[in-house]
């Protein structure tokens, strides 16, 4: 006879992409690379979601250029997600994007109980609007304070200081990934970072992984210990990834 038809209680895990779609993203195939990286990461993300029955992984995305708008507004289960390509064009309303996300992380519409949200900000340049006001609005929201905030800098024109303020400063703990923006200088490294954020980080935020003694059991400020960054996998034919952006 079958085991009783009962399911493990679960909590939502909100995963939000904040994607820079300014005109500069059109250069050197950056926009295409980002679209590809996210699309390619979805099966792996779905597999992690499947393996973590305690979490209900829901994805959203904001695009920002002249203005910030929802690219995916409804929190969507990963396995139902279809990634429509983002188009580049305009300036960099990053502050507005943070305000849009701040509103979405208010309760309601946010659930009363959830896992820490994961916010991934991807940009190749400087904000052209009031970034500070946007960040302040975001960090007033408790769910944003609790969120795992990651930033990916595309190419050498990205404003690392702004991205660092988004993720927050925190002393790097021994053996763990430093809390610094991830710098992608080509499509391969971008794809690796996106994959890491959408699989390893989602896993860490939804279900605790094995701990080793070097992992501080009581993290200094972060509320989720970040997993190791992907080991740089050297492709023997292509040695270290080229500096494209």
């Amino acid at each position: 006879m079958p085991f009783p038809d009962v399911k493990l209680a679960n909590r939502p895990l909100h995963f939000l992409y904040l994607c820079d779609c300014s005109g500069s993203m059109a250069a050197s195939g950056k926009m295409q690379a980002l679209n590809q990286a996210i699309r390619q990461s979805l099966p792996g993300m779905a597999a992690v979601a499947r393996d973590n029955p305690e979490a209900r992984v829901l994805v959203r995305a904001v695009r920002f250029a002249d203005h910030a708008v929802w690219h995916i507004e409804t929190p969507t289960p990963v396995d139902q997600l279809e990634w429509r390509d983002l188009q580049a064009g305009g300036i960099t309303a990053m502050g507005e994007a943070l305000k849009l996300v701040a509103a979405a992380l208010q309760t309601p519409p946010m659930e009363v109980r959830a896992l820490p949200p994961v916010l991934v900000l991807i940009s190749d340049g400087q904000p052209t609007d009031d970034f500070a006001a946007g960040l302040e609005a975001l960090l007033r929201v408790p769910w944003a304070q609790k969120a795992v905030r990651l930033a990916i800098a595309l190419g050498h024109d990205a404003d690392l200081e702004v991205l660092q303020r988004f993720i927050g400063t925190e002393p790097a703990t021994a053996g763990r990934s430093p809390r610094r923006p991830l710098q992608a200088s080509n499509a391969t490294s971008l794809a690796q970072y996106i994959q890491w954020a959408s699989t390893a980080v989602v896993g860490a935020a939804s279900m605790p992984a094995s701990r080793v003694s070097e992992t501080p059991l009581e993290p200094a400020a972060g509320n989720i210990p970040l997993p190791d960054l992907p080991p740089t996998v050297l492709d023997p034919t292509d040695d270290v990834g080229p500096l494209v952006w």
Partner: protein
Amino acid sequence: MSWILPEGASLGFEGLAAPLRIVRGLGGGTQGQVYEVDLEGERLALKWYLPACIARDGGLERRLVASIRATAPNEDFLWPIALLRASPASRPLIRIRDESFGYLMPLRPPAYVGACEHAAGRLAIGLRQVMRACFGLADAFHALHLAGLCYKDVSLGNLFLEPASGGILICDNDNVAVDGADHGAVLGTPGFMAPEVLLGQARPGADSDLFSLAVLLFRLLTRHDPLKGQMELAIRCLDEPARRRLCGEDPVFIFDPVDDRNRPDPIEHAAALITWPIYPRPLQALFEQTFCRGMKQPSRRALTGQWKQELARSLDRRSLCPACGQENFQASGAPALCWSCGAPLPEPITLRLPHGSVVAAPDNELHPHHFDALAGEDLRRPLARVVAHPQDPRRLGLRNLSSAAWSAETHDGRVQAVQPGESCSLAALARIQSPAGPIAVQRPIRPSPIA
């Protein structure tokens, strides 16, 4: 996934005479990547470590070498077979700069699936199979602990189940060490870790294994977490500090008979409330022992031998509800109702054995430990199985799975031989003499008909 070892390539390793073909990547985790490999026609699994993991865990290589020398406690472990380092010629084919190593282990057969599939409710599995898997788990840890070893990282992620049989396999055996002797790097997986380990007051060892084992057994039997009740509902953001409070600083068992602060919520935690009453009282008592007194006193936790005994006895009590067919595990004697449909369960026919008794329900089995007081509980080599008649499932028989003939005696004194592989009907049977010992058929005393 970017694979460190080239799929399809044949690589040479130090100490291996033949090259190893990397068939395909199977998965990657926090410590490394696992590959299906072919060694002279034999399929095996190879775990290859990330350099960061080797750097963090100085004792890893020493522990692996010791485990390989010691061999597996029983066949349910995907135990390390050999430690591998790339030969100089193969070094350049490995796509990481830093020196690294791996180990060979048996490959998990395709019928085995990750235990989280059961936790998520995606597996077609029966209660008997879940209980057998729990027994297998207790048995495996019993063998491991008796060998003086401890596992340290018990979790749902390191267990595989075969839904059809309830068979188990335990992977990730690279943290295994002599209990108390080693200072390995792993602490365990939050949610399964004993409170004293989570709080940094103790290193993982056999006592903390007992806590983690009980959590895993509870999660398999109930599809719920033993510490997630009202106190979890009060947490808005379930992050690390919250888990530390819930599982370390103030852990309260959801069915603690005294402390009722953490009772399951009827809606959010329905799984626990539906499944807990299925299990017989002595089995529930072992959870209470481990999660109440044993929560703060590691030496009071239920031992592997106790789990084995109660899980085996629970399986012996298994009966099928005549109304809905669902499996029940109620203790004999007291009048009982089916947990699923509420119908009264009739007093069953039982097979009385020198050591214990087994309810006559299809698929229930007699084992050597039912006959020999010195034999530990073991479900691997059944001597007999209750079978239903193919045409009329209500007619039960007993199949001789042993290698020797039985002599079966009916109520009217007729004696008949039951050869290995044959079955005899239980209908008129009084007792069986088998080389292992006697089997007596005990029928319920029928309530006298109403006058």
